[in-house]
């Protein structure tokens, strides 16, 4: 047992603190702070990985609280899943941070960006290490917060600010489910530790509900149907953020959560089936949307959703290892795809486009000769995600497919295969349109600096070899199917976009006009949400605002007016009655003294005279009375 794994998230958090407090003084040096912290984390993660490749266990770091008498510690879980994820997150995160040095070079909030990136990584690493639900939930929300901060990093753009809010609110819906699930779990079983999950009562409907609620959290974070809408909009953030969110951190958290709670899911069939079908729907839907989209980053976003759906599907049919394996390989090639897209967006200049750095693939084309490193790595990543042997995507996708068919789900297998076909098609549509063909007039492009291309190359190596990290279980039927599917997809894309130079695609577009409209409008899900949830919400909010303005404010204003009138009366009373009485007493005193002061002449003789007459009167009275 290695007992220093809990130090891993500490370094990114320290980097965050340094960059947020001293970022202004550090300027460009803040990138090195973040990268150094990530590298140290990577080093410790590697040591942990080597030291724990066989054993597993958890240890408590700090005693924390007692909940209803149940002790809860800040603890760390270390098992192969955690070790693998730690390594993936730190490798991909570090590379993305190095890449960001180039990508964000001219940004005004350079050090802020790296502070957030470090916080994001720290939260994700903490989430991976957590050994109980409360810790997981804390870091889970930390990841959510960072995604909000980073997606709306360019908050001067209204679209970016909106996208950040959308991501935060949409995932919050899932998080609420997760929170309820955690509370339900605690109140029904008195435990919050992951290690106790496997032994929970089987066929207990409460625990099944807990499983489905936990899955709700995963739906939000991993952008599964129906809460996937935030992820394409999250493309408003800087591209390295997209890469980090999509490959290593945010969306992986949902899949990781399911894998971490697998002991619970495996014994509750209903929860597991829910995971499988939600995953299948998501995978198919997102892949089909990606077929017709024209934004380089959004295609990749839908691709991510689709791949996450496949992972969920794999987990849902019982393939824990297949799902997490695909999570790992996907982290590498999806990060690579995003960073390639970023490299292209960063270096392309379109004369007549107001955005200058365009993301529209119809304006690109023939970039390969100008950007050989980016282009090559892009193609490698594309081959990996399409599932061409022997690249990493092939092995993990193959294992997923074989898991699905071997557990007896022919329908889900068909869906997964179709998704793979679409994946191969849309990713090569992207590659052919962007890298090959003729260059559009008015487009200028150059290769990105080494600080960006070196991480690309490293990730490309990982994308190729990541599939060999696991002992293979060759299954020739699914291997054949998946390879065939990938080749067909690529071939279709080739015939559509290279041979026919888009004439055929236009023809098909007009023939399937309805389908095309449906897909390019993303199944109208955003519009449905707009109509069903957002509009009524706004209407309720508006009426509440009216109520607030009319009734509440009215009541407050009425009270204010009443108090004004009352205090006016009171002040009149004070001025004329209270003060009047006081003044009257003073005046009476003054009047009396004005009379009697005449007695006091100041002449001693007068006093003597009065004294004499007084004495005489007293004597007289005495004599008469006497």
């Amino acid at each position, binding site marked *: 047992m290695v007992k220093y794994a809990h130090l891993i998230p500490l370094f990114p958090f320290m980097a965050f603190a340094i960059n947020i407090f001293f970022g202004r003084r550090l300027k460009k040096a803040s990138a090195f702070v973040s990268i150094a912290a990530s590298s140290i984390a990577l080093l410790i993660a590697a040591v942990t990985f080597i030291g724990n490749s066989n054993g597993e266990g958890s240890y408590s770091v700090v005693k924390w609280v007692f909940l209803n008498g149940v002790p809860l510690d800040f603890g760390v879980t270390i098992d192969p899943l955690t070790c693998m994820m730690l390594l993936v997150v730190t490798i991909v995160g570090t590379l993305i941070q190095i890449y960001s040095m180039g990508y964000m070079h001219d940004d005004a909030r350079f050090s802020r960006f790296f502070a957030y990136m470090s916080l994001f990584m720290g939260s994700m690493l903490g989430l991976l290490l957590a050994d109980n639900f409360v810790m997981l939930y804390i870091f889970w929300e930390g990841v959510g917060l960072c995604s909000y901060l980073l997606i709306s990093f360019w908050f001067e753009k209204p679209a970016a600010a909106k996208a950040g809010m959308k991501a935060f609110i949409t995932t919050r819906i899932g998080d609420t489910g997760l929170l309820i699930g955690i509370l339900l779990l605690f109140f029904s079983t008195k435990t919050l530790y992951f290690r106790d999950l496997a032994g929970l009562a089987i066929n207990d409907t409460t625990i099944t509900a807990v499983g489905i609620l936990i899955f709700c959290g995963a739906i939000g974070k991993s952008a599964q149907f129906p809460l996937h809408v935030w992820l394409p909009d999250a493309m408003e953030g800087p591209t390295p953020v997209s890469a980090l969110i999509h490959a290593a951190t945010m969306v992986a958290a949902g899949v990781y959560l399911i894998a971490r709670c697998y002991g619970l899911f495996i014994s509750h069939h209903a929860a597991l089936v829910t995971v499988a079908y939600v995953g299948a729907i998501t995978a198919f839907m997102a892949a089909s949307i990606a077929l017709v989209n024209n934004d380089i980053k959004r295609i990749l976003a839908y691709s991510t959703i689709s791949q996450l759906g496949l992972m969920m599907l794999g987990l849902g049919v019982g393939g824990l290892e297949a799902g997490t394996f695909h999570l790992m390989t996907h982290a590498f090639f999806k990060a690579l795809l995003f960073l390639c897209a970023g490299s292209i967006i960063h270096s392309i200049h379109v004369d007549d486009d107001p955005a200058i750095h365009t993301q529209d693939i119809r304006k690109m084309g023939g970039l390969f000769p100008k950007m050989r490193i980016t282009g090559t790595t892009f193609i490698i990543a594309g081959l990996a995600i399409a599932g061409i042997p022997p690249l990493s995507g092939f092995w993990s996708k193959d294992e997923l497919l074989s898991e699905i068919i071997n557990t007896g789900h022919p329908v889900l297998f068909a869906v997964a295969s179709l998704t793979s076909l679409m994946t191969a098609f849309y990713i090569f549509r992207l590659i052919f349109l962007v890298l090959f063909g003729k260059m559009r007039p008015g487009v200028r492009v150059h290769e990105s600096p080494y600080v960006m291309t070196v991480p690309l190359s490293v990730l490309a190596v990982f994308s190729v070899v990541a599939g060999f990290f696991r002992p293979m279980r060759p299954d020739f039927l699914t291997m054949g199917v998946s390879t065939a599917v990938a080749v067909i997809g690529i071939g279709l894309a080739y015939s559509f976009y290279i041979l026919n130079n888009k004439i055929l695609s236009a023809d098909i577009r007009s023939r399937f006009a309805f389908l095309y409209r449906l897909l390019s409008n993303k199944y109208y899900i955003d519009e449905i949400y707009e109509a069903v949830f957002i509009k009524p919400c706004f209407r309720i909010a508006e009426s509440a605002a009216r109520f607030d303005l009319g009734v509440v404010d009215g009541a407050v204003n009425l009270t204010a007016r009443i108090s004004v009138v009352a205090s006016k009366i009171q002040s009149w009373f004070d001025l004329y009655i209270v003060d009047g009485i006081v003044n009257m007493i003073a005046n009476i005193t003054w009047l009396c003294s004005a009379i009697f002061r005449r007695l006091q002449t*100041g*002449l001693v*003789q007068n006093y*003597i*005279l009065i004294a*004499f007459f007084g004495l005489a009167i007293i004597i007289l009275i005495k004599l008469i009375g006497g």
Partner: protein
Amino acid sequence: MIPQSHFLILGAVLFAIGLYGALTRRTAIGILMSIELILNAANINLITFNKFLGSPDGLGQIFALFVIAIAAASAVVGLVLVIAVYRNMKTIFTEKMNMLKW
């Protein structure tokens, strides 16, 4: 033998003259002189009653002697005050001495 009443009438007349003087004089010295008259009226009364009530030890006479001595002393103090006031205010009229009056 002069009857007792004559002495008493003399004392009363002296007192009345002294009182009148004290009340009407405008100068401080006049008032002081009038007060001396009143004191002497009292002395006459003291000696008269000593004689006619037949006090054997002459207590009334001794008392009268004390009054004369103290009257002399008080006259001195009074005159000193009058001189001091005159030096400061250039007047001995009592109604002009009104600096403490409001």
